[in-house]
């Protein structure tokens, strides 16, 4: 599904960042943003399940089933009626519920505040972690040098 609506693109990016965020880190950032989860009704209690991860033969060919990963999902409704969805990697129900609440709050007009207080730090930390590995990988890059052979000298 390709997405062009900017509001949807923003929500998509937000939910992707939240799904991959370390649960404890998100909990800490949310606690700093709002002392407790706001009142909400749980539409779908946190449910642990799996998603079948697919690969492609040769990296670009026919899809095949690589194996499953654990995912937890949850849906909530705020008193205003706004519904939020949380899908996260792993088996942490509180994490999924927190994401669902954040998703709903963002649709209720708190998107830019939450972006600044929660999403941007998570994204920066994810980028930093990724760059840390990339820099270590770069240090293991082989620099070839060619030995000059006697007859060429």
């Amino acid at each position, binding site marked *: 599904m390709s997405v062009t609506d900017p509001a949807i693109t923003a929500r998509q990016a937000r939910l992707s960042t939240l799904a991959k965020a370390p649960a404890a880190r998100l909990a800490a950032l949310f606690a700093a943003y709002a002392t407790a989860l706001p009142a909400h009704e749980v539409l779908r209690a946190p449910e642990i399940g*799996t998603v079948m991860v697919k690969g492609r033969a*040769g990296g670009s060919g026919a899809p095949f089933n690589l194996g499953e990963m654990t995912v937890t999902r949850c849906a909530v409704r705020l008193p205003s009626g706004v519904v939020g969805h949380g899908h996260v990697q792993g088996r942490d129900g509180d994490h999924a519920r927190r994401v669902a609440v954040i998703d709903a709050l963002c649709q209720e007009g708190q998107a830019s505040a939450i972006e600044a207080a929660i999403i941007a730090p998570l994204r920066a930390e994810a980028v930093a972690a990724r760059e840390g590995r990339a820099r270590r990988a770069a240090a293991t890059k082989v620099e070839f040098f060619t030995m000059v052979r006697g007859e060429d000298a």
Partner: protein
Amino acid sequence: MYVAVKGGERAIDNAHAWLAEERRGDLGVAEMSIAQIREQLALAVARVMAEGSLYDPDLAALAIKQARGDLIEAVFLIRAYRTTLPRFGASLPVETDKMACDRRISATFKDLPGGQILGPTFDYTHRLLDFALAAEGLAPAPAPQAAAAPDRLPHVTDFLAREDLIQPEADGSATPRDLTREPLDFPADRPLRLQALTRGDEGFVLSMAYSTQRGYGRNHPFVGELRIGRVDVEMDIPELGFAIELGEVVLTECETVNQFMGSKTEPPQFTRGYGLVFGQSERKAISMALVDRAMRWEELGEDNVGAPAQDQEFVLYHSDNVQATGFLEHIKLPHYVDFQSELELIRRLRAEAAASQTQEAAE
């Protein structure tokens, strides 16, 4: 034949209590945490995730702890747990060309764009025991860092594909057959074979691959590329109406480039074998690619030389270590009635033989 036997409950309970005690070992030694196993036995965790067919490092670490380090038992525990979970759906195929690579090497092109990146490898170590590790509490020196390479490393096979020198990959069904949902059925198409290989026993797949190298269905592989790193897992979420990145998994991918002289149906070109495995597991990924290539003999119009690795039924029926160990180990369970009947048969045959000998002697 199995017969219901009563009794033994107390013996079983006591055996399990003793198992728990043995699992813990000497109480004077600190207990291992799940996090320690996840962080410090990461390659064992990777193997249990790959063969257990479930990506969840904490669960795999728990299974390893519960199984006292018996990795096949741990795989069994993971498979059993997996069956209790609902499946929410399937991801979009992961895009390994966007992998954030820890390691990326090619045995075919020295100067490939992006370079040869060794990553945290055992290669080039001297395989001498490091007694410094026996002394605990020593933090390793921080690994050196350098300016990061471009974010996206192209696949080596793309270079060959651009010159049309390698067989293109055919597209396939968006919903591949799934051997966890339907019984294995032959002929198995390539997606089904790849699923079986990626969750197959590492030792079995390694031995099959090795047999092709030793001449039983030789297929002249070069490791075109081996990469290890993180990829995003993206899935369409029906409630949302769009796809999100649900998580990130570490994968090892191996693409072999195989010499191919052409056949009745195919022109001379390079062909491919493919390995893709959960976690850091390059022995398994390379093995998978070799066995994948060996099983492709029919579509490439090659001869079946009768090599075990070319026989998809043989490979797929014997690659699963949970199935194999289940059938193998069941023979240690009570077979008293079977054995009683065998015993009676042998006694009767003995008696008959003795009787006929006595009769012959008398005549």
